[in-house]
């Protein structure tokens, strides 16, 4: 069987997979001043167990087709009431399965499920990306375009190499614009700039903005003013609400 993310003992047995995804791209050391340091996405066939982004990403729906009857899964897939008498899903029906479930059910040998590509990873869209990756609204189409695309490597699809290549080229093609906009937009509304960015790109954009803002702050002499650590500020806030409630 495969390990599916779920609460309880299964979560503990999922730990070993971390050793795989940790090796790639070691996390940067958290700055001491930050109360919470986010864990980045795994961006590979295995997701990063501790990454909030990856957890959200694993809920994304994947179109597929049931090859063997799935008893008692109708409720999970939201087909409970309408289907009528049985609470199972009959063979051959088309479903939209969340990624985490698809990964659990998918098995090459037993053929419980066949997975189709979401349209943004299909040939037609791949052509669009290779023409000009900058025009695509990845947030509307994604919003986890890169992470989800990497996860597709888990399902043996003949187009996998092309998908991986397109994803990489898309990232490279959009890199310049993200870099320039994040390093130049100082003190302005950035919502228009990030509106079309994928979640991964937004994190990058924030990193660029932080570099710019920190530097501007220093140049204006604000960096020499001593401010309370964010740790302390959070602590105070929490105490206040505790007293409230």
């Amino acid at each position, binding site marked *: 069987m495969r390990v599916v993310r779920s609460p309880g003992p299964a979560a503990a047995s999922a730990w070993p997979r971390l050793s795989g995804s940790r090796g790639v791209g070691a996390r940067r050391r958290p700055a001491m001043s930050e109360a919470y340091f986010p864990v980045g996405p795994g961006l*590979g066939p295995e997701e990063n167990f501790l990454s909030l982004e990856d957890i959200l990403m694993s809920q994304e729906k994947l179109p597929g087709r049931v090859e063997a009857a799935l008893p008692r899964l109708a409720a999970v897939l939201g087909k409970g009431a309408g289907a009528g008498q049985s609470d199972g899903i009959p063979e051959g029906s088309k479903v939209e399965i969340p990624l985490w479930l698809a990964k659990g059910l998918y098995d090459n040998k037993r053929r419980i499920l066949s997975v189709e590509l979401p349209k943004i990873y299909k040939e037609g869209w791949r052509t669009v990306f290779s023409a000009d990756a900058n025009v695509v609204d990845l947030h509307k189409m994604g919003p986890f375009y890169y992470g989800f695309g990497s996860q597709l490597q888990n399902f043996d699809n003949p187009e996998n190499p092309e998908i991986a290549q397109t994803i990489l080229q898309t990232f490279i093609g959009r890199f310049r614009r993200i870099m320039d906009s994040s390093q130049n937009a100082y003190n302005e509304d950035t919502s228009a700039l990030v509106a079309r960015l994928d979640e991964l790109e937004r994190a990058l954009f924030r990193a660029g903005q932080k570099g710019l803002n920190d530097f501007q702050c220093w140049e204006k002499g604000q*960096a020499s003013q001593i401010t309370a650590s964010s740790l302390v500020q959070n602590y105070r806030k929490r105490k206040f609400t505790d007293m409230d409630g």
Partner: protein
Amino acid sequence: MDPAEAEFLAEKELVTVIPNFSLDRIYLIGGDLGPFNPGLPVEVPLWLAVNLKQRQKCRLIPPEWMDAEKLEEIRDQERKEDTFTPMPSPYYMELTKLLLNYASDSIPKADEIRTLVKDTWDTRLAKLRLSADSFVRQQEAHAKLDNLTLMEINTTGTFLTQALDHMYKLRTNLQPGESAQSQDF
């Protein structure tokens, strides 16, 4: 790293001051300083120079390169060449800011110097972005960045390393089968 931390490191740079008081040699962990005699130039770290200046206990002599003509030359050189040219000091940005803020009265043409340094800085950052883009576009594995200063690396460092991290991971996806499924049993 914070710009403030880069500034902290820059404060170790030595500058020349002319004190108007006398004091024996002082012994600090970082080394001995002094002795201080009125009217005799002495080399002290920037942090002490700024402190003395704020208490009006010295006159500051700007570093040799902090001169409008020299900086103009540096700026033109920087604009002309495709690669980064060596800077007169690894902390030129920090030094300029600190000295101009606290001792602008002892530096001639302070405003001009400020603009020139800022121009050089902008040129260099534009170059840095350009080379980062071509680095990513050509999917190079390594690059050599000579003559970059700490503060410059600092502004784009996090962004660039994160982006390269992502790119590396996306590229490993191109070679599947390497990380064989070990969860099947």
